């Protein structure tokens, strides 16, 4: 599972029927500095992810999302999802050794 912050939303036009009514978020993965409290903008390097969302995250929220086959596990049927928003992050306690 990775940390990322929501920078936008995605609405699907033509999509797989299993994805009807789904909400997708545009998420920028965290850099190590952002774990330590660096500002969210400017955006960290790295590809922006599109993450399936059932928890109702909004722009500016920090979320924990899982990637890969595990992201399609929470669905009763098999759906083409490979990034799933698993937790809305409230507080990050990040204290690496000096």
């Amino acid at each position, binding site marked *: 599972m990775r940390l990322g912050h929501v920078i936008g939303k995605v609405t699907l036009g033509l999509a797989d029927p299993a994805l009807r009514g789904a909400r997708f978020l545009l998420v920028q993965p965290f850099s*190590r500095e952002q*774990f330590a409290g660096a500002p969210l903008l400017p955006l960290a390097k790295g590809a922006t992810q599109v993450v399936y969302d059932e928890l109702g995250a909004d722009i500016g929220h920090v979320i924990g999302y899982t990637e890969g086959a*595990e992201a399609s596990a929470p669905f009763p049927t098999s759906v083409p999802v490979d990034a799933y928003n*698993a937790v809305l992050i*409230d507080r*990050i306690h990040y204290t690496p050794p000096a």
Partner: protein
Amino acid sequence: MQLARIDGTVTGTACHPSMCQGRTVICQPLDAEGRADGVPVLAFDQLGAGLHQHVLISAEGSVIRQLVRDEHSPLRNFILAIVDPKSGDQVAALSS
């Protein structure tokens, strides 16, 4: 499996119910010399690993789904084992 160090924890307001059976900790993957390598990842912890402890994390979704007894859990990384701090000396002794 991968060697990592616990660098912190996160708390969440809303999450998938299967995550409530343990803590979510911040794991910093380590390279062979024990230095930080890459961006930290979040891992599910039921063993109660302490801060800065070295652990083994696994990314096997099928295993963690059995651990939390929920076949719909989106969890992936989890703490498989806590490394004995003295194990580094044995490796050094073997290789010297």
